[in-house]
């Protein structure tokens, strides 16, 4: 017997209506205002400038500051950096360690209102362009292996600019960051852009020469701690606790005595590196362990210049999907300065918590 079309249609209609009703019920509670909460998750991934976070957790510094403000803060490791930023953007994490360009192109361009509350460090040689023979001028027409659309890509663009070339003068080949060391070992790869710890391993290969690095553009590749703006507004104590954790930990790790050395060794272990390798990565990281310096850098006009460069690059690479101009994503800076669409600010450089740390008011 053939089931009649009508009865199937009826069943289909019923089956369709049910989940739709359930869904609208589930989705109607739109979070217009973030609730007051006491437990937060902050994601991090392995990078020299971010190792203070897991160390602070291990050493009890996180608990100390969280207790002070009656909070519980979980420092969560995410193995894959991009995944950590995506998890934050999807709302699974309240905060994340992220580079300035990625904060702009992933959460902020995705409409997630994000506040950068700690400018933790800038890459001062942690990112670099490596070539097997020849200088940067010889790069013209070559294939370059790198993680496309990452800070490496930005660094390449800046490097090419410095010798009067454009991105179109080279051919880029997207290469995963986990595979770039192996890729550079293969004879057909002549140029690669990478960051640490991979960069160090690649530099050690015979014939490799560092032709351009982030030390040539200091302060442009920033590493931030970003948190969800709505959550921060509802729970300002979160920002205070995080600032407290950061400056206590970085003060400890920059000490040249036994305790400072022990802290750095513990961080090296957490990063899966030897203390020597970790120290060498720290030497190419400009750490803002002094809150005053971090506030000064955040308030400086140079930050606006840097972010203008970064967003123009991001826009030119199509990272602001569907936007008609680089102004589509708004950014705000201390002192009421804005960049781009002031009505749609989704990335805020907020120096208030760093200031409290500088003034000893935490």
């Amino acid at each position, binding site marked *: 017997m053939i089931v009649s079309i009508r009865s199937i249609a009826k069943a289909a209609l019923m089956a369709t209506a049910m989940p739709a009703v359930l869904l609208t019920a589930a989705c109607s509670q739109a979070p217009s205002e973030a609730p007051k909460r006491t437990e937060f998750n902050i994601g991090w991934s392995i990078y020299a400038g971010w190792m203070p976070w897991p160390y602070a957790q291990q050493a009890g510094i996180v608990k100390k500051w969280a207790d002070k403000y009656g909070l519980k803060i979980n420092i969560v490791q995410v193995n894959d950096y991009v995944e950590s930023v995506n998890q934050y953007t999807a709302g699974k994490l309240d905060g994340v360690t992220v580079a300035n360009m990625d904060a702009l192109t992933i959460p902020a361009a995705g409409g997630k209102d994000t506040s950068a509350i700690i400018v933790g460090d800038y890459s001062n040689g942690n990112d670099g362009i490596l070539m097997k023979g020849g200088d940067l001028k010889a790069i013209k027409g070559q294939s370059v292996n790198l993680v496309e659309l*990452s800070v490496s890509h930005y660094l390449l663009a800046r490097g090419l600019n410095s010798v009067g070339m454009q991105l179109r003068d080279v051919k880029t080949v997207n290469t995963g960051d986990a595979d770039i060391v192996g*890729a550079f070992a293969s004879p057909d790869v002549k140029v690669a852009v990478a960051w640490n710890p991979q960069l160090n391993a690649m530099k050690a290969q015979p014939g490799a020469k560092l032709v351009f690095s982030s030390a040539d553009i200091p302060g442009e590749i920033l590493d931030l701690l970003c948190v969800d703006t709505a959550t921060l507004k509802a729970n300002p104590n979160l920002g205070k606790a995080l600032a407290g954790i950061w400056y206590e930990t970085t003060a400890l790790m920059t000490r040249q005595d036994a305790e400072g050395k022990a802290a750095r060794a513990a961080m090296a272990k957490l990063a899966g590196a030897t203390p020597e390798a970790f120290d060498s990565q720290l030497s190419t990281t400009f750490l803002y362990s002094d809150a005053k310096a971090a506030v000064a850098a955040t308030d400086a006009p140079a930050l606006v210049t840097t972010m203008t460069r970064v967003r123009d690059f991001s826009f030119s690479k199509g990272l602001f999907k569907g936007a008609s101009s680089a102004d589509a994503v708004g950014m705000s800076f201390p002192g009421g300065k804005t960049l781009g669409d002031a009505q749609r600010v989704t990335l805020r450089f907020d120096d208030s918590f760093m200031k409290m740390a500088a003034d000893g008011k935490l």
Partner: protein
Amino acid sequence: MRWVNRQVGRGGRVLLGAVPILLLLLVYIVMAASRHAVNPADKILPLPGSMAESMSALLFVPDQLTGQLVFWADTLASLQRLGIGLGISTLMALVVGLALGVLPPVRATFGPLVTGIAVIPPIALLPILFIALGLGETSKVALIVIGIAPVMIRDIAAHVSALPREQVIKALTLGANSWQVMIRVALPQAMPRLLHAIRLALGPAWVFLISAEAIASDVGLGYRIFLVRRYLSMDVILPYVAWIALLAIAMDMALTFLSHRLFPWAHGESH
């Protein structure tokens, strides 16, 4: 009437089959719309409109840098890699599988080696492949071949060696030599099985293709997906995944059709 006896007509089958798919689409659209009501720039569940918009740029607007239509260049590159990989694997399966299946000394010599290679997870070999073969097309095709060929070889060898012994004996009594047994008895019966083996290998072949493209590439379907993953561009990822699914289904259907057309005897009386 009992459900086990209810036969569904052709029209009904199409309709019933469409229901769960439409339902899923509906659930998706409702969820996407509700997310967009909260955040109009949401990237995680893009609306169909924004997917169409990003895809039309990839479909019809040439890339500034290369001058290619990105989507078609990706599809062509991926299908080429897949095709070469499948072609080499099929040829290997046929030649090696026949030899292993028909000739016991060959089976004794190379059987363990094929089994040994078959149990190595191909992805674990990737770093070695890169060093040995470089990052170009060769290593991508090699990954596909290493991934699927051993399984196909074993399948064909097992099928051929399980052919009724009587057939071989009969051929021998009629004066055939080993070569003739292989070509006239085993080969025709291995052919439909070969097409079947390709169908089963298609899924893994796609996995290895996408993995290879994710690691180092400048064009390809997998390359695009892993590239835009960096900034959570679901409006490109989802249509690409749907396109891969469509391509895979089309290939599977084409192989089934071919098998029915070329070897109707292998598909029972109803065909």
